[in-house]
């Protein structure tokens, strides 16, 4: 294995069985690329998942893989890592897997800060069981189990991770094939538990739930890409930015020309209060490393 590895080296012989157009394909592509770039042999990488569409992931990688039971991937991965600390362990699951049945394991793994990379494929729906509302479904989501629309406040995954004491919290988007691999790599570099929320489109049961953010045109207007140390700027023309309203502890979108670039908040991933504000920010949707514990 001295030649550089290629994504194909991380591709198993199993036929991929997600629905056509599923965002999971893009995540798989990014992941294969990242594993190749990281460069460890597929034999030294383990991918553990629960149950769900997302959780089929391990079958499509040529690494060691364990498709376990619903909600328990983080707990099982904890055992794997305790037994074999030298291996790279990735944990993959959907919003149901990680935040409904598995919410407690997710929280405790983050608290313990075990050196696992947790990838949450958030499509805001239970895909595999045919489209019921999940804990991340926005209020009003109509599904077979909520025909009148859901009324429960959804979980905010980065906020949940922050509340649990996570040391690394990031977000990316399935379709962002430049951004996503970058974030996966940073998650891998982080020592301790890395929590990555990947906004993933489920064209069958929840098409477009993340609105225009995956859209080529609208995306740049509704998403802000965070860069360590840089002022928080977004927009196709990089004409908008975020300022920190200290009184209310909120980040607010402004036009750069109105306040001047110097007035914009800078992204300091080690600042927990800023991370809190970023986690609560709905528009624009922040992507990148939202939080990284100082010293970690």
């Amino acid at each position, binding site marked *: 294995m001295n030649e550089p590895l290629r994504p194909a080296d991380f591709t198993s012989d199993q036929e991929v069985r*997600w629905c*056509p157009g599923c965002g999971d394909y893009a995540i798989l592509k990014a992941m294969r690329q990242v594993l190749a770039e990281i460069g460890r042999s597929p034999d030294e990488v383990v991918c553990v998942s629960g149950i769900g569409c997302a959780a089929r992931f391990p079958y499509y990688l040529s690494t060691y893989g364990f498709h376990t039971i619903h909600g328990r991937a983080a707990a099982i991965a904890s055992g794997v890592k305790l037994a074999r600390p030298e291996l790279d362990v990735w944990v993959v699951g959907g919003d149901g897997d990680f935040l*409904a049945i598995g919410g407690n394991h997710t929280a405790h793994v983050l608290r313990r800060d075990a050196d696992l990379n947790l990838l949450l494929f958030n499509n805001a729906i239970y895909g595999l069981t*045919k489209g019921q509302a999940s804990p991340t479904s926005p209020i009003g989501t109509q599904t*077979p*189990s909520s025909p009148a629309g859901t009324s429960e406040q959804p979980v905010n995954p980065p906020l949940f991770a922050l509340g649990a004491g996570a040391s690394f919290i990031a977000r990316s988007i399935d379709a962002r094939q430049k951004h996503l691999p970058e974030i996966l790599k940073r998650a891998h570099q982080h020592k301790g538990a890395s929590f990555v929320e990947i906004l993933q489109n489920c064209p*069958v049961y929840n098409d477009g739930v993340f609105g225009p953010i995956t859209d080529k045109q609208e995306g740049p207007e509704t998403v802000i890409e965070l860069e360590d140390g840089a002022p928080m700027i977004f927009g196709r023309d990089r004409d908008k930015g975020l300022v920190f309203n200290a009184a209310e502890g909120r980040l607010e979108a402004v036009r750069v020309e109105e306040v001047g670039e110097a007035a914009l908040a800078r992204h300091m991933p080690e600042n927990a209060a800023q991370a809190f504000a970023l986690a609560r920010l709905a528009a624009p949707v922040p992507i990148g490393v939202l939080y990284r514990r100082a010293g970690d």
Partner: protein
Amino acid sequence: MLDTSRSRASSRAGPLVVRFAGDSGDGIQLLGAEFSKSTADADTGFMTFPDYPAEIRAPAGTLFGVSAFQIQFGADEILTSGDAADVLVAFNPAALKSNLHVLKRGGLLIVDKGTFERRGLQKAGLDENPLDGDLAASYQLLPLDITAQTLEALAALDIGRKQAVRAKNFWVLGLIFWLFDRDPAKTEGWIARRFAADMSLREANTTALKAGHAFAETLELAAFPGVAPTRRAGAREHGAPPAREIVSGTQAMALGIRAVAKRAERDVLYCSYPITPASALLHALASGEGGVRIFQAEDEIAAACAAIGASYAGAIGMTASSGPGLSLKTEALGLAVSCELPLIVIDVQRAGPSTGMPTKPEQSDLTLAIHGRHGEAPVPVLAPATPEDCFAIMVEAAEIAISAMTPVIVLSDAYLANAASDWVSPDIDSLPHLAGLVQHPQDGFQPFARDAETLARPWVAPGTPGLAHRIGGLEKEAGSGHISYDPDNHAEMVRLRAEKIARLAGRRAAAEISTGDKTGDLLVVGWGSTYGAIRKAVQELRAEGRAVSHLHLRQLWPLPGGIDKIMSGFKKIVCPELNSGQLAGILRGELLLPVEPLTQVTGQPFRVGDLKAQLERRLES
């Protein structure tokens, strides 16, 4: 012109089986549903079974994307959806490849020949075109250009090609209607209502339907002889023909749950976490109508616990799942046993262990249901025998739960949940009045005092003035319910909890043979969804003069009264199950009789023919 006389001959001898198979996107289930309705309208008995792919939306044309629908209908009592098909319609090569084995030799095989081109064959993993082979030697092959015919029929309409192709299921429906002499009018009416909002879809489907019908006529396809109307006995008993509906086991169960709310005069709180195949029931109840509210919990443990909380608070708590979920609920069920709260737990069984084969039926959760709790924690277990029995079983489960203050487990399965037949809606008001079962506190209220007959403790919900009390999962002193570590008290409480369940055997209907005589060479004991297949196999054996009878258990725990007496009338007892012999093991242990298991653990329902052959072998050995 094709000669369909062979299949006609077989149709005269018994009921007919039709199977549609195509891609998930081909509208096979809709086609099946409409054909079922017309069968019901023709006053013909039937049973259907949809066969979905496991994947959500597999790539078009692949083998794992094939969706199928099978219906058996005919003059006799229809007990299953049929072992083998008289007619198979295959919409593409993958559908043909994966379904041909279901078609009887000599059966009518209709294929959409236009789909048998290079890409289609390749996706199905076929190197050669089977239509070029000798299919016609074994089947009455009828290759039609269904897609092309549909497109042609719709050419005049102002719709896109993609939409037009989608109408091909209605084209096939028209053709099949002609074959079985059905009247398309009702379906046209349904199309008009269903697609009222979209004129072009409405027109497309209606046009396709008519075109298929006309095509069959033009082709001078020999129609199957009319299958006589066979409203089942009893249906006409009360004068005017009662309303008939098509219900799957899931729908019947949902209706049963609503009936419980009505007859118990209490809210039902149905708590669940989605899982295949139990979620369909959650969906069926999601509207919140009829006194049944749903609560989608964060996991199965929370669902079971919320249901327990609801029951504690005086509502009827229900919780449903499939195998993995039942495993997760075991600790919570122990609490309900210990606190003696009514609770209904539904397990729509699927193939295990672990995640297993989620869409496939199995009966392998029986021992878990009976024994799956730490400590001595007996729980009654029921199982419906047919899709429509899913209604009655819920009412019975509630009757037991309330009258004995106990959780009750109802074991359905993936087959029962999806299979459908028509029925006459039951008269809910004539059902037993469950509200009357509630134990009212006497003077000197004690939360763990007991009714002398049922041994039930009183069900006193929070909010009841003057009766505030505390309960919990630690051992309780008989009567007062205070925490007690007293050895004799514990022994007595364990005994009382067991006796309370054991007494149900005496209070409820005794076991009864459902087919055949009270004595004979062979007693076939079944439970759950295998009812139809066993009954049919036993009927056939009896028709051949064999001394075989069928006993079907709807109550698995405690075993119903009189079962030992029944068994003593037979030389041999065989217990067919879709597991490795779980009921057989229980019967052996309880009755000390050499009950023989007859097992099939393939994730498939029994086929009547296989079962019959196996039973024949047992008769001989």
